């Protein structure tokens, strides 16, 4: 095999590899967790930390889905009880998800952490439903044939801003 043949061969291999790369799916990491009896997901990069139970302190003048403040490293974190927002009944949460929200300290009260999953792009989709609760989801992911709603944190924060403005 002369050099030209070698080059032809390796370039051909290279092309095949590139073709394979193009066909490879992108994967995204999601944290799956429980709020009451239902599973939800958040992109892993939106979660800063998971805390086991922290005391939550009452805050006045806020809607009932704000459970209060948690003290994390001497900073007050606003704790959301999303079951109260979605179903009007609070949860007995034992974990806090500390979220990565620019310029604010926000946490979600959750029942438990389920798992961190890698989800291929093809299993992430938008919601078509227009019911009241779906406005708080950025989409859904399919994990082992189960549909899990992905929380849209910005939508949830907008709801709180709106409620506070009106109060």
């Amino acid at each position, binding site marked *: 095999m002369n050099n030209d043949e070698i080059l032809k061969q390796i370039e051909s291999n290279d092309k095949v590899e590139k073709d394979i790369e193009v066909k490879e799916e992108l994967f995204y990491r999601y944290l799956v967790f429980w709020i009451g009896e239902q599973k939800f997901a958040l992109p892993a990069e939106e979660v800063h930390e998971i805390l086991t139970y922290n005391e939550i302190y*009452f805050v006045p*003048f806020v809607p009932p889905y704000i459970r209060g403040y948690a003290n994390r490293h001497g*900073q*007050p974190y606003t704790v959301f009880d999303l079951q109260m927002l979605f179903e009007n009944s609070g949860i007995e949460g034992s974990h806090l998800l500390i979220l990565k929200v620019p310029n*604010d300290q926000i946490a979600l009260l959750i029942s438990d952490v389920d798992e961190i999953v890698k989800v291929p792009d093809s299993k992430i989709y938008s919601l078509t439903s227009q019911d009241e609760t779906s406005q708080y989801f950025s989409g859904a992911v399919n994990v082992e044939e189960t549909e899990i709603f992905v929380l849209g944190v910005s939508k949830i924060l907008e709801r709180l801003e709106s409620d*506070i403005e009106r109060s």
Partner: protein
Amino acid sequence: MSDRDFVHVLYSDYGATHFLINRDQCPASVYAADTVPMEGGNNYFKEKLIFTSEKSSEQVPLFNLHKFLIKLFRFNSNVESQLVILTPLTLLSEETLSYLKEGPLLELENCRRIGIRISSETIIKQIPLNELQPHSRILRSKLKKSGFPATHPLEGSMGYLINLDKLLAGNEGRR
């Protein structure tokens, strides 16, 4: 650390929650044993103190901050509130004075000060300024307007700094 790095406060302890009042807002205090009922007012302005001397008499309406906090924060507290801090009306804003003069102070002449009834479990403290933290941004504006401009998070207790002026003029204080 210099004096500017500290703040002098009245520190009222309610267990898992505590409250701080800047001493600049309350230069004097008295033991409130003998109060008399006040006409008008509202749920939290129901009594007054009367100070008399040979030359004059001063009526001081009392705002029951202790009762207000118990209701607002849903405390189950048996702590008494025999302490009253005295705040000159000159320290209050026009908005607050205007509200008070339309309501609780309407009947009171020669009123120069307002009394704030606070928990008997209150002490004077000097705390480092850096222990005070702003509210979470999303709640900041609402709580500031309502008279709770900052927090004081401690291990096992969340503290709220109280702005008496805003609190007296706030909607909750009117009920």
